[in-house]
């Protein structure tokens, strides 16, 4: 069996869904952050997969460049997120997302 676009798309979708599932099920804000990263990585697999195995008229470099951008920006986002989490932890002594419910209604 040769690896093709279908397999990569399945892996990508699976990663993405794991991320979504994590976001819905976890309570720790750091875990939520990791779930978002998983979703991004699912996307990256799809992008690189398309670039490598996609249709003949496809521009492979676009997809790869896109994936690089996604990785970079995900890193930036994590940096900001961790900083915010640290501040929150100092005030609350916890990073449980469920306790962030003062703003509602």
């Amino acid at each position: 069996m040769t690896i093709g676009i279908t397999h990569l798309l399945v892996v990508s979708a699976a990663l993405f869904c794991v991320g979504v599932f994590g976001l819905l099920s976890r309570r720790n804000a750091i875990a939520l952050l990791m779930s978002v990263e998983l979703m991004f990585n699912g996307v990256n697999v799809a992008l690189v997969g398309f670039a490598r195995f996609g249709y003949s008229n496809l521009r492979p470099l676009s997809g790869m460049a896109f994936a690089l951008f996604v990785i970079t920006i995900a890193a930036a986002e994590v940096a900001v997120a961790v900083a915010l989490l640290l501040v929150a932890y100092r005030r609350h002594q916890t990073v449980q997302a469920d306790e962030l419910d003062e703003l509602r209604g």
Partner: protein
Amino acid sequence: MLLATQNLQFPPTRDLIGLLPELILSGAFVILLMLDLVTPPSRRSLLAAVSLVALAAAMGAVVWGWFDADHARTIYAGSFAYDRFGRFVDGIVIASAALTVAISPDYLNRRGLHFGEYYALILAATVGMMLLAGAASLIVIFLGIELLSISLYILSGFAHTETRSQEAALKYLLLGGFASGILLYGMALIYGATGHTQLTLIKQSLAGSSGTDPLFLVGVGLLFVGFAFKVSAAPFHWWTPDVYQGAPTSVTTFMSVATKVAAFASLIRVFTYTFADSTDKWTGIVAFVAIISMVVGNVAALTQTSLKRMLAYSGIAQAGYILIGVAVSPDPLGTVGSLYYLAAYAATNLGAFAVITVLAGRGEDLDSYDGIRGLAYRRPYTAAAMAFFLFSLGGFPPTAGFFAKFLVFSAAIHAHAVYLALWGIGTSVISIFYYLRVGLLMYTRPKEGEETYPWARTSLAGGGVLAASAAGTLVLGILVFLIYTAAVSAQHGVLPVPQQLA
């Protein structure tokens, strides 16, 4: 072969000039960060002045670009659109940023939040929005969205001692990341289905297909979810009330206006003009989301007791009205209506939030309805301005809101989507209840000896911003032709493929 020769060179001058406003603001961003190191805390208003100068320069570049971009073209190998559509939106975004910066020093000083990064972050977000407005490639769209979002995540949590602000920032970040994931997945699928990331090329490759490729259509759907999140359209609006309420009010002022404007610009560019050949596939979904937004936004706002939340829900409803202009694609009147609505929304909503910002006192942010009771008897001009903005949000003539609604509704009727106009009119009637309720509260005379909220004195800058917003709201409501012509002109040249107004 693809990029080998071209992209290794330094970008040609005409490409650089196309990005002139963005470059000015990025330069100012760096300068501000360095200036902050040498500016004593008491003189931080200087940083606001520097930002205003940079924004004025960028505005000049945008105005120049408006005339220069008469013949639309793409720059940077098709990844950025240099057209009037983008300049139009840039103008709104820069004006919003400038007005926000102008009211910020007083507000931040009172709240004890006056730090230099604030202005740098506002400029960074502005650059992100302008990139988004002009983006002609999926990658640049993503970049723009993330640049503006990350800046706004930090700004939302700028009140580092307040739990609400922290909560808002974390919610915005986690949900925003989630939405970005969905958006990216959509982009990946579209890339897979069409083989391109540049909108022009995507449009070309779509021209030959039947447009029923599920891969592509799912991609379109996911992309729309990502945009709907950014413009806070229901049912992807959940973050909006919480973040608007928790963030410092000056940040909310900026975010509520500029983000929506920029995201809508990109939404229109991608959907109405890139996916123009398959409008019958997706307009139904957009119309549905528009209706849900109008209903949810207006109904949920009815029973609010927080000004910021009320305006947040009102913003959700306004997103619904603006989406009508997208849902009637490919009718160019819809785009014109949406653009006009964006300008009107920017002037009005910025004014309404600016009122709350300039009034906020030293302690708690001004937020609850009680805090505005009797305002008209202490601050008659400010109350009159707020009443005017509320009238505009409610869509009364002769304000901007009236003509904005008129234009999108007439576009809906023109495109034989009368049901959208009817939903719009029906929900507007509901909206009048909660807008007028706040208006009445301001004009309720406080009882003898009753304590009112300790409103701050309106400074010259604050008064100027309110006057400018009110003037904008009035001009858009009376001298309709001015912005209407500009919107038509912006629509004419919109990339990826210009379409003529019938």
